[in-house]
């Protein structure tokens, strides 16, 4: 479903972030991408969300070549891929409800439908009671759950989690991991970028290891090998 073919990314003047990356991720898979800092994990995600373009190579999502994507098509792509980040990237001046609703408002969903769907998704992540609070009024784990709710609101086929537990304690980390597994069970492809050895090993799913911008290991039921 997602294919990286011969991907190379060089930042000017000559910093190689990724080199000859070939990777296939099937629909419904749960893949962890691991590696030390600066090995190109986040760059790989940025290429997938069209935040960056590869210097060489081709990325396809269900036969859609996103390396040739037009600027006007990027919003459409991003509505199909849910993304969560280490720093949550919530809108600080919007309430939890408004943060989640915003992802629907940008694509013109009616107010009535928003009022129906958002509480449902907030219920899934256990935040229905805190819908009127602002991000800074809830804990880090809860902020990440808001981000997950926002990422799920479009029922995306792909969920990308870029170091989602990087700012969380072990209890919240476990909760987020369980939530990601649950989402995967419903059929969503989950790509988890992490350098949390314990978390990756506990998942017992496919692990792709990057080193100096290249894939050095790809195991079906892998472990954090570095």
């Amino acid at each position: 479903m997602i294919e990286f073919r011969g991907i190379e990314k060089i930042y000017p003047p000559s910093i190689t972030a990724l080199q000859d990356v070939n990777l296939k991720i099937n629909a419904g898979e749960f893949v962890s991408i691991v590696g030390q800092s600066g090995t190109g994990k986040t760059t790989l995600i940025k290429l997938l969300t069209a935040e960056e373009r590869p210097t060489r190579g081709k990325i396809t999502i269900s036969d859609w070549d996103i390396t040739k994507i037009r600027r006007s098509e990027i919003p459409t792509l991003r509505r199909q891929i849910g993304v969560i980040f280490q720093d949550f990237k919530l809108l600080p001046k919007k309430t939890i409800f408004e943060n989640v609703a915003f992802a629907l408002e940008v694509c013109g969903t009616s107010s009535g439908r928003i009022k129906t769907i958002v509480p449902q998704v907030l219920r899934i992540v256990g935040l229905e009671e805190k819908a009127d609070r602002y991000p800074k009024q809830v804990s880090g784990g809860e902020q990440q759950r808001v981000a997950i709710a926002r990422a799920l609101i479009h029922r995306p086929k792909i969920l990308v989690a870029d170091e989602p537990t990087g700012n969380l304690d072990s209890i919240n980390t476990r909760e987020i991991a369980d939530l990601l597994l649950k989402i995967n069970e419903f059929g969503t492809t989950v790509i988890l970028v992490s350098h949390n050895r314990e978390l990756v090993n506990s998942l017992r799913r496919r692990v792709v290891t990057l080193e100096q911008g290249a894939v050095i290991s790809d195991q079906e039921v892998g472990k954090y090998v570095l």
Partner: protein
Amino acid sequence: MFSALFRILKFSSQDFWRNFWLSTATVVVLVLTLVSINFLITLNFLTKTAVAEVENKIDVSIYFKQGIAESEIGNIKSYLLSLSEVKDVIYISPEEALREFEKKHANDAIIKESLEEVGENPLGATLVIRAHDTADYPEILEVFDDTQYANIIQEKNFEDHEAVIKKIDSISEKATTTGFGIAGLFAVIAVLIGFNTVRMTIYTHREEIGVMKLVGAANWFVRAPYVASGIFYGIFAILFTIILIFPAIGFAEPYLAGFFGGSEFNLLGYFSNNFLQIFGWQFVGVVFLNMVTSTLAVGRYLKV
């Protein structure tokens, strides 16, 4: 369409109130900019009033020889009044001229004695001419250079005033040019301040703009609420400026009127009569500036 417009206005007003202090700071800077522009308009008005006041005090007198028929002088008066450059012509009869002369020199014994010795009124009639513009006097008085008037005119005092008139014309011209120059400079400063203020406001929102893009917002959907906020800033700025300007003028007007010696001076009237022209253009200017600045500033952070 209406739903998108409603959402843009909703986001914009939410942003305005939830970032209250940032919005207030932006509006305050814009108000200060507009107040500076209005101060300049006031200064320009005061300069023009002062120059007009001095110009108004200038007139030219044509002194006729004794015995010239009043009807003949009346014809000349009618002719002068028919000229578009002439504002007013006053006829002073020989008797009136004598009365004024006596009044003026009431304490001068020698003049009094001299008048008594002459026995009759030695003064002729006078026409006092006032032009709309001091620069028009030479043209108006050209007619009296004709030889037919040489026999009936005793004297004209234009030559006495010529240097003063030229000086006033020069001051008036310089005041206008300087006024335009300062206005231009102020306008540039105002535009730069307004531009930077809105740019700084948007700079503080750069991360939010990035997040909006990452969750799939189209560029126009991200940009529009900020542009709408720019319009709101403009509306609030112009309203607060009007609220500040009128009481300030009301307070200062009696002092300024005293300075101009109770002559025709109405700054409040000037601002009221030209309300739409003055504040309408300022509104259009500040809103246009904010819209352009917001559009450009947001554009920098849309490349996510």
